[in-house]
């Protein structure tokens, strides 16, 4: 404990550095206590956990500019392209070593830029369509496999206060943009970083979302939004697009009276495919911190070496899928019943939520357009065409 003891040594004898670690607020009960526990168990540094309800992305983006940036933080699908190009985050390749191949490769590449990895995926989140089996049976409706079948099913399942389908109070602007693009074989960006949604079929597909919104069979104005199982659990809707994390609630309230589906392809003979968006919060290290090496060591400890905590984090508080294949076997709760079906869908149909070069400005431009199409019934083709130049300007800026 004397000043003579080596500062560089990370043994318990030296003065411990203090690290700030940030999470967004997880809705599932117990998550906060769990991350506090992981942090307290780390022997080589004092880790203080920051926990942020509300608009986490904005808070994080502006905090990274200041001297008080957190040492370690999670970022949805990794740090933004601007944070990476601005040198605000550290590359983390050397932490993974041989284990790199064990992580979900789609997410590893999503969090990499020019062959450097900037975040370590924590757990995989998935969005998918859940439905009440009993209600579909009673109405004589088969689980839909195309968009038209889905719309027809929603109509057949609508009965007074119970609506057929719930895709969020905004009519799907927030969570259906990706699945709708993929349902006609389009995407946000093409593989060579060009605008990916100029095909006329995209406009047709978004136009159909407006028809759905204008029909009486879509639930809007629900007390809890799409990310909570409340709407389907309380009988406000028969089908709902939601997250894998609601499974504990669904099982508790509905038992085995629910099934899962991917978002269907648009039409039986088109270029599209069924899809589910997957994403992951990735653990990243701020380049401006005072203890960058200590921060990296902590990330390696928690998200690479400590597999027991990773499994605990994935399945003890809501359902998530482990980010590493070797851990999937240990996630026992994902091996039975409806959860196992969800895993199958994930393996077959998953898409990374959005590409790295899809900047917030591009996202705002597209979601503004999609809102106008879905809610106001604006002409899909011309409205989408207005987005293209904005996205091109953003691409010109970030493609280097």
């Amino acid at each position, binding site marked *: 404990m004397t000043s003579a003891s080596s500062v560089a040594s990370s043994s318990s004898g030296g003065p411990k550095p203090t690290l700030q670690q940030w999470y967004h607020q997880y809705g599932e009960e117990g998550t*906060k206590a769990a991350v506090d526990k992981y942090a307290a168990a780390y022997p080589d540094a004092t880790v203080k956990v920051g926990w*942020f*309800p*509300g608009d986490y992305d904005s808070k994080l983006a502006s905090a990274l500019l*200041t*001297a*008080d940036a957190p040492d370690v933080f999670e970022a949805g699908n990794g740090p933004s392209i601007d944070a990476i190009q601005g040198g605000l985050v550290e590359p983390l390749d050397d932490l993974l070593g041989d284990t790199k191949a064990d992580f979900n490769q789609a997410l590893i590449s999503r969090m990499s830029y020019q062959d450097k990895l900037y975040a370590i995926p924590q757990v995989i989140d998935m969005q998918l369509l859940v439905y009440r089996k009993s209600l579909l049976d009673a109405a004589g409706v088969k689980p839909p496999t195309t968009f038209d079948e889905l719309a027809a099913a929603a109509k057949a399942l609508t009965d007074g206060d119970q609506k057929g389908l719930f895709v969020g109070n905004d009519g799907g602007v927030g969570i259906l943009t990706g699945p709708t693009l993929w349902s006609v074989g389009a995407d946000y960006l093409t593989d060579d970083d060009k605008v990916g949604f100029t095909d006329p079929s995209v406009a047709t597909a978004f136009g159909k979302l407006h028809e759905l919104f204008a029909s009486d069979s879509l639930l809007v104005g629900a*007390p809890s939004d799409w*990310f909570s199982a409340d709407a389907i659990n309380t009988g406000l809707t028969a089908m709902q697009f939601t997250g894998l994390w609601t499974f504990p609630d669904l099982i508790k309230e509905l038992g085995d009276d629910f099934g899962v589906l991917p978002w269907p392809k648009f039409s039986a003979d088109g270029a599209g495919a069924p899809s589910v968006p997957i994403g992951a919060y990735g653990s990243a290290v701020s380049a401006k911190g005072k203890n960058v090496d200590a921060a990296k060591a902590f990330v390696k400890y928690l998200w690479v070496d400590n597999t027991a905590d990773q499994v605990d984090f994935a399945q003890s508080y809501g359902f998530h899928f482990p980010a590493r294949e070797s851990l999937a076997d240990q996630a026992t709760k994902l091996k039975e019943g409806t959860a196992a079906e969800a895993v199958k869908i994930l393996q077959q149909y998953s898409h990374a939520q959005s590409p790295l070069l899809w900047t917030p400005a591009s996202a705002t431009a597209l979601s503004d357009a999609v809102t106008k199409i879905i809610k106001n019934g604006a002409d899909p083709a011309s409205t989408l065409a207005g987005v293209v130049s904005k996205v091109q300007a953003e691409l010109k800026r970030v493609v280097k």
Partner: protein
Amino acid sequence: MSTPVLGAERPVSSSSAAPTVVRRTGIQRPPIERFGVAVRTAFLVVGALLFLMPFYLLIRNALANRREIVGLKFTWWPAELQWTNFAEAFSSANDVPMGRAMVNSVIVSVTQTVLTVVLAAMAGYGLARIPFRYSKLISGTVLATLLIPSAVTFVPTFVMVSSLGWVSSLRGLIIPGLFSALAVFLFRQQFSDFPKDLEEAGRIDGLGWFGVFWRVVVPNTGAFFAAVGAITFLGSWNSFLWPLVIGQDPSSWTIQVALSAFTTSQTVDYSQLFAAAVIAVLPVLVLFLALQRFIRQGYESTGSTG
């Protein structure tokens, strides 16, 4: 700027006794007019009920359970009063640090009120009563900032404060809001009307500039200080945009930011949210009713600065 400052025109001694009895025309109403009186009274009663309804909803929700707030039917009053909502809203199991936010709000509002009033009163007095060559020019530069609504400058001020390293700190919450040109303007008007002979008397008694201000002027304009103080406190307690921008770490949230985060968080417990809202509003309402006269007076002078 040249419009007369109507609220500040009253002589000092009577400014604390603003007339509360309203003058009437003194004309006896003919019977036909009774109809008009009935219509007016009905309008007032219905209006008052509508205006008080949100407060009723606030209190009802704070004592109700979740289903009664967002269920499928309207609930007049909770079947069972859920007093535990209040305790739970402030419990540590909660993701939103309500207790801390409350403490922050009290510290920020009180400090800001005291310092704003002191700074503005001194500056207002200096500009009104100490002859100085560039006094007009300085008044001009102060008043010019009134033309630029503070909300438009939030981006640059954030840039400034973040480069000082004051993000997520009480300093960052309090200090940038202390320099209210409006308060200076109000005080300057008030002190310009202060009787000169009172000051002279103080000076003959051997008081200096500060002594006259502190011993003579301040004690005689107490009501006006209360008015500016009350308005500043309300504005500070209820302000949202600046604390939202500057309070990145939950430990530096004010009650308004905490309530807003509560609404947008993933697990909204509506009963607790409303219980917290009641706690955030009630003290201010009580204060507001108690100090209503001063606040009205302060607003009146604010309103006539246009």
